[in-house]
């Protein structure tokens, strides 16, 4: 059971998407695990063959528990466990009942009885997160023995907002307890960026239009390549800078809570690719279906408040990361350009840094680079 975030200590396997004998390639999604942050898809990091599933769906297991064995390419098969076969179930003496459902090949989708589906709805349980019985069917029994239904905050499918709030609380408390934060900020004139975006979007079809979040991410990622002390992880007393820039894009969830899944190698992606990734992430965050690597890999986080919110933010670092960038809303304000006061579009960007790893000066340098990159949006 991988740790899909700083404060995850358990997970429940919801379903296996691969079965023993299946050939796995790096990046394949093998299982779905329910965590405090919703359902997360677990990817594999090696090629091989799924040899054995150790944890059946429905079991809550601690982080670190072996979920399954994968035999790497060329590896010999594991010795079979020397366990005596279980005693055979006594066969009923009656003739087989012809009313029993014939053996039907495994079907796609849930096999859930109408009554169970209705009961799950009544209890606010996601049937997809309920372990089927040994016959592969979800009936009333499975729903009734699924997690009892205390009043839960209504959230998107697969997310338990109460659990998420607990996870956020634990991570943020740890952050404020352990990380000596410093803050620097800079007000950046983004008029050129907004003008360029307006022109760019005017010639694009609606579905291909860019949100300003995409150039922000790109500029931040490129600026971070020059600020290694802001990009990496602080674990067990040691800071390890990251070569790659995997920006966690903080995404709010309807009903409360937020997640910052990684956009991998954001510095190398074009704006269109970034936009696609953002759209996909938001959809999957709201659907409660993220991938394990997205949860585990961020090396830094960018939190963008968006329009009509607040002028500036003072974000809290998500451990074990060492920095977080907070972008306030873009507002039109008087600004001095070439000795004249003119109305411009301004954005106040803050950086919270981990003082164990970096100093305010490095963060200020980052902001300076970030500013310059935003002045030539066409070059992003």
């Amino acid at each position, binding site marked *: 059971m991988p740790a899909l975030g700083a404060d995850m200590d358990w997970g429940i396997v919801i379903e296996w998407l691969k079965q023993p004998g299946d050939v796995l390639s790096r990046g394949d999604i093998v299982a779905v695990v329910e965590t405090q942050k919703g359902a997360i898809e677990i990817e594999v990091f090696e090629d091989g063959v799924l040899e054995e599933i150790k944890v059946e769906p429905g079991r809550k297991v601690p982080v670190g528990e072996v979920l399954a064995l994968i035999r790497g390419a060329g590896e010999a098969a594991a010795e079979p466990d020397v366990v005596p076969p279980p005693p055979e179930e006594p066969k*009923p*003496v*009656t*003739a*087989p*009942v012809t*009313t*029993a*459902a014939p053996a039907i090949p495994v079907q796609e989708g849930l096999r859930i*009885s*109408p*009554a*169970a*589906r*209705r009961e799950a709805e009544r209890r606010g349980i996601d049937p997809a997160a309920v372990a089927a*019985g040994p*016959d592969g*069917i979800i*009936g*009333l*029994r499975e729903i009734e023995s699924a997690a009892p239904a205390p009043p839960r905050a209504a959230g998107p499918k697969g997310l338990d907002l109460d659990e998420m709030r607990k996870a956020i609380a634990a991570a943020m408390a740890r952050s404020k307890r352990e990380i000596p934060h410093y803050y620097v900020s800079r007000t950046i004139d983004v008029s050129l960026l907004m003008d360029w975006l307006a022109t760019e979007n005017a010639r694009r079809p609606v579905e291909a239009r860019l949100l300003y979040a995409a150039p922000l991410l790109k500029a931040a990622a490129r600026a971070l390549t020059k600020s290694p002390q802001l990009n990496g992880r602080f674990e067990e007393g040691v800071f390890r800078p990251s070569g790659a820039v995997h920006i966690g894009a903080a995404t709010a969830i309807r009903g409360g809570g937020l997640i910052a899944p990684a956009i991998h190698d954001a510095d190398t992606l074009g704006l269109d690719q970034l936009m696609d990734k953002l759209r996909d992430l938001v959809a999957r965050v709201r659907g409660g279906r993220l991938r394990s690597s997205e949860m585990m890999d961020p090396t830094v986080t960018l939190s963008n408040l968006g329009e009509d919110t607040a002028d500036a933010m003072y974000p809290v670092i998500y451990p074990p990361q060492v920095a977080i960038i907070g972008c306030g809303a873009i507002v039109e304000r008087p600004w001095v350009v070439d000795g004249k006061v003119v109305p411009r579009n301004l954005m106040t960007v803050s950086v919270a840094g981990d003082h164990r790893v970096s100093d305010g000066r490095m963060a200020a340098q980052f902001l300076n680079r970030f500013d310059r990159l935003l002045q030539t949006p066409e070059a992003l």
Partner: protein
Amino acid sequence: MSASTLTMTYRDAVREALREAMQRDERVFLMGEDVGRYGGAYACSKGLLEEFGEDRIRDTPLSESGFTGAGIGAALGGMRPIVEVMTVNFALLALDQIVNNAATIRHMSGGQFSVPVVIRMATGAGRQLAAQHSHSLENWFAHVPGIRVVAPATVADARGMLWTAIEDPDPVIIFEHATLYNEVGEVPGEGNTEVDIDRAAIRREGGDATIITYSGSLQKSLDAAEALSGEGIDCEVIDLRTLRPLDDATIIASVAKTHRAVIVDEGWRSGSLAGEISARITEQAFYDLDAPVARVCSAEVPIPYPRHLEMAATPQVETVVAAVKGVMRR
């Protein structure tokens, strides 16, 4: 007067019901093959010839179409005939009279004529009477609008349903399962025997699964429910009593409670009453179901003569138990 109960056989209950009907209404008479001198194929009318005479207990020639038609004619003429047919297999010879005349005349006369005939017949397997005397064709009759079909499964219903049927202004067919005649049960004392022929009865209450059955399969279903209770499965058992019109309300209310239904019907599965009930459950209680509706029916073969094959071909306690476990996914 007395509310005390009497203990008697199903056969005696049928005979008492016939006697009471003859006494209460002089328009009532009984006719059929061997009902008089022989006392009835299943001895239900034994002694009635001596008591009521040849005018009212009439032996007929071996012509089901003829004497059933005569009964229908008598009913049209204002009498209250009770026609006994030895077994449902033989009643096929009278199908034309029943389906084309008895069931249609009220409709075709614009309500001017009614046919208050009662037709009794034995049905079902279990007595090693082989393939021409053992079938369960109740569903063929229950298919037909214009007639009411009832199936007393208890001694009390055998005692009470006949009079209610006679009072019905339209044709009523009473199916008596051939294995029931020797069953002993309690009936209410004199004056309290009347029963309705509209509603199904819950013969055992339970919350886990509903067994829906009738006639000769009721006791098997109750025995299965008893066996299952030892395994922690709590069955409700519904006795349909009336096969046409079906009492949907009782069935649906029970399935809505238990979420699982097993229909035990000695008829053949294809085109069975069990199929009709299953369809109604799906139509009216689909969202209450936790398992597909299961049916325990007879094997689709002519009912065999050898005892072990006859048993293998028809619903038994063990097959009902297995079907209930199936819908319980156990």
